């Protein structure tokens, strides 16, 4: 018997997010957790995954985790480098890109994302966040969206304080009414498990759990009354190859930060 593999909740989340990407897909990558997961996917089961960053690098093939979306390595390894207006107008807007891979500071039960301001009001918020960046149009125009975010009672809310990027708005019919061309968020991948929209109500429902995480624990870390699928899937723990690849990446990132 092999020794049981030990891993952190963040590693499980990143591995789980990487698995959601299929080989050959085109993926518009946000920085942070989504970038780690997308690079892990490319290093393991999806070598032909096309990574697209909003800095205008299309088909980047980084050998370590990029430090920012403008890391020089992304430009040096890309199939094409285009301007910022071009990446949004020619590549994102027409719906050419299979999946948008986004992070979030606050997310609600309909998958709307807030990265603008939390608490108080817009002019006097409790926490001022960086703002929209490329996310609103990524959320609107990619064929589908996957969100990677750590789950907490405060960040998983009934209704976001500010809609920076639209998920399903207030429910069924909203994306169509707003003229959003992509299908919207298909998965929220957290450090506890996976949430997917209910096919009828579009409310995010817990459909998968990592080994050792209970449904009540997930419910406790959700600010809305989280529905649980009849039989949530137990997601396989990270395979040694997945963990090795992830740690190799993170090691090179830590070294390049020194």
């Amino acid at each position, binding site marked *: 018997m092999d020794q049981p593999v030990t891993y952190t909740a963040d590693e499980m989340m990143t591995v789980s997010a990487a698995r959601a990407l299929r080989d050959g897909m085109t993926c518009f990558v946000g*920085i942070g957790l989504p970038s780690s997961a997308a690079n892990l996917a490319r290093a393991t089961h999806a070598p032909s995954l096309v990574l697209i960053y909003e800095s205008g690098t299309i088909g980047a093939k980084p050998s370590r985790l990029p*430090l920012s*979306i403008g890391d020089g390595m992304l430009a040096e390894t890309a199939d094409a480098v285009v301007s*910022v207006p071009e990446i949004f107008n020619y590549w994102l807007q027409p719906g050419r890109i299979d999946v948008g891979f986004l992070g979030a500071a606050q997310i609600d039960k309909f998958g709307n994302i807030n990265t603008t301001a939390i608490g108080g009001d817009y002019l006097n918020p409790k926490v001022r966040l960086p703002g929209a960046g490329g996310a609103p149009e990524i959320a609107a125009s990619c064929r589908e969206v996957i969100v990677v975010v750590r789950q907490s009672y405060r960040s998983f809310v009934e209704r976001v304080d500010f809609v920076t990027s639209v998920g399903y708005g207030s429910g069924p019919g909203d994306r169509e009414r707003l003229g959003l061309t992509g299908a919207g968020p298909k998965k929220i991948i957290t450090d506890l498990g996976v949430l997917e929209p209910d096919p009828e109500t579009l409310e995010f429902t817990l459909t998968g759990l990592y080994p050792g995480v209970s449904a009540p624990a997930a419910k406790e870390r959700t600010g809305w009354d989280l529905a649980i699928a009849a039989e949530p899937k137990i997601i396989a723990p990270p395979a040694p190859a997945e963990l090795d690849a992830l740690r190799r990446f993170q090691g090179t990132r830590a070294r390049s930060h020194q």
Partner: protein
Amino acid sequence: MAEIVSLAEAVERAIHDGDAVAMEGFTHLIPFAAGHEVIRQRRRDLTLIRMTPDLIFDQLIGAGCARKLIFSWGGNPGVGSLHRFRDAVEHSWPVPLEIEEHSHAGMANRYVAGASGLPFAVLRGYNGTGLETLSDGHGPVPTTEAPTIKPITCPFTGETLTAVSALRPDVAVIHAQRADRSGNVQLWGIIGVQKEAVLASARSVVTVEEIVDELDPRPGAVVLPSWTVSFVARVPAGAHPSYALGYSARDNDYYVAWDAIARERGMFTQWLDEQVYAAPAGQL
């Protein structure tokens, strides 16, 4: 034709109190040295425009140069908040700061409209977001100026799209790898929105790593002909702590260290005195 001058002269002649100043460079080729010269010359009441206001605008805002900020993502990439920006928004220190907030796609298209000589650009964007209502007089921000985001009906299909008003800055400031002796400018790697910013602006200041006899071609390079540029100044490492592909690497430690410097007014003021006011301008 661009004039090749010192950085101090370029800033003195191009940028005046009250101007709208775009400083672009999308995580690469950020014109830090020019920003510091603007601080040294104590420009005031500027409307600062930048898609990704990071450290360079934190420094300008903290130094009291800005009255208003137009942007789409403000943060210290990979590190955290911009403390000087937040102090200005939340506590009006050192002076109040008005903000006008967009998405990247919106900002990029506003520059495209400006560069194209059009009053607005059209995109699919903003629908259903809180950003849409920020400038229409119905949202949380008191409307002091005309809205910059409005719905528009396509005259061919009847579809509702989004119009964003053109950006027409008084001055664009960018950093590039090279210029030749006639002032033709060449930049490559991640090229961002610099070409659009320069073409949308009435005047421009370009700092360069070096001035060469001839601009041999580089893959994917953008060339701004001399007659589209007002001033060129040679400032090696003028993008530090960001980088210039082929010349320098990003100084990641600086970004990390900035967090502690900017967190507190006293530390920041000391940094400003020692690192900006006491430092010489970039050399010709």
